[in-house]
């Protein structure tokens, strides 16, 4: 009896409620992504400060780092090496990459959200947007 009641309630879930549920899920996902990247960026920066206290006292050694160098990890392999060494810079870079990924993940999640809402038109539109994003990402890399 009780089970039947629950079943009825779910089938009565309106499209509006479904949309609302998805919106809250996306909102929480974004908040989590942003918070996690913030923790990594701040933690990584503090760690590298702790290791290089000379940055805090000497303007010269700091200046060195804002001039173009190759010291910055700019490949995933370089990042992995840095992370294994527990380098503060690498942790901060991981946080920055996570931040960069959040809008892309948001579009990706929206595709599934529209599938869940059985909204064919918007599943198609969002999937096309996602493909265009990947395309511009891939084209940029070639250049």
């Amino acid at each position, binding site marked *: 009896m009780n089970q039947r009641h629950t079943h009825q309630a779910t089938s009565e879930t309106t499209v509006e409620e479904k949309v609302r549920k998805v919106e809250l899920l996306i*909102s929480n996902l974004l908040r989590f992504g942003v918070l996690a990247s913030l923790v990594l*960026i701040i933690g990584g920066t503090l760690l590298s400060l702790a290791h290089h206290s000379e*940055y805090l006292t000497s303007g010269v050694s700091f200046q060195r780092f804002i001039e173009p160098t190759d010291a910055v990890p700019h490949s995933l392999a370089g990042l992995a090496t840095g992370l294994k060494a527990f380098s503060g810079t690498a942790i901060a870079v991981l946080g920055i990459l996570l931040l960069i990924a*959040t809008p892309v993940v948001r579009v990706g999640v929206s595709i599934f959200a529209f599938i869940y809402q059985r909204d064919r038109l*918007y599943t198609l539109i969002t999937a096309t*947007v996602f493909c265009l994003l990947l395309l511009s990402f891939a084209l940029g890399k070639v250049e």
Partner: protein
Amino acid sequence: MNLLQFDLSVLAISVVAGGLGSLLGLGGGIIIIPVLTLLFHIDIRYAIGASIVSVIATSSGAAAAYVRERMTNLRVAMVLELATSAGALTGAYLAGQLAVRWLYVIFGIVMGYSALMMFRKRHEALDEFAVHAPWADYLRLHSSYYDERAGREIFYRVARTRVGLMLMYVAGVVSGLLGIGSGALKVPAMDLAMRLPIKVSTATSNFMIGVTAAASAGVYFVRGDINPIIVAPVATGVLIGAVVGSRLLGRLHGTTIRLVFVAVLLWVSGEMLLKGLRG
């Protein structure tokens, strides 16, 4: 200057950039790039890399609040994003084949004109049901959001979707060519052509610029332009500013947002004109 002083001053400026950007639907680039290059003498490469991340941080920091309050119209954003990403691809293809100088002049004038039109619209009320809009009907773009300031749900209808799509394509081409945040073109297009409420326009633009910036950020990372020493305080500050700004948007009066946007747009338009005319 040592690193701590640098971090703290960049952090403070970035909070302001993130707050303003999240309210107005613009990336923080217009503040971040001049501050980093002129004030801190940072290489332009790193400044642009930091500005790309700041656009994403503005967008993602504000997004949680805007999605929850349904300030962002996700359907409008996705439909328009089709045109913008197609435009950005065209722009990237055309880059280097066009005399960019005159584009600065042309879009400086376009932005100045948009600012004027947006200023003139400040007393107009939303017409909730008047517009005939077959495309927006088909795409189910009409929506509503809860306006904290007004204390009620605001229903709105979306007009001239095709014009909006064309303008978004152009905005995409321009941002691909000139590398400027296209938020300055997106908000006027949504406000003037599609007649979205100003708060919905800025919040939706906010979402879109983040998505577009994320697509191009990979290139900057691979090139090594994203320097954590510079990006860390920028991203942290912008995120904090955007979270605060997005909480504020609901409470502010629409006209206030409009007037601040018009002022910033005039400033950007002047900068573009100068850049184009000086050569």
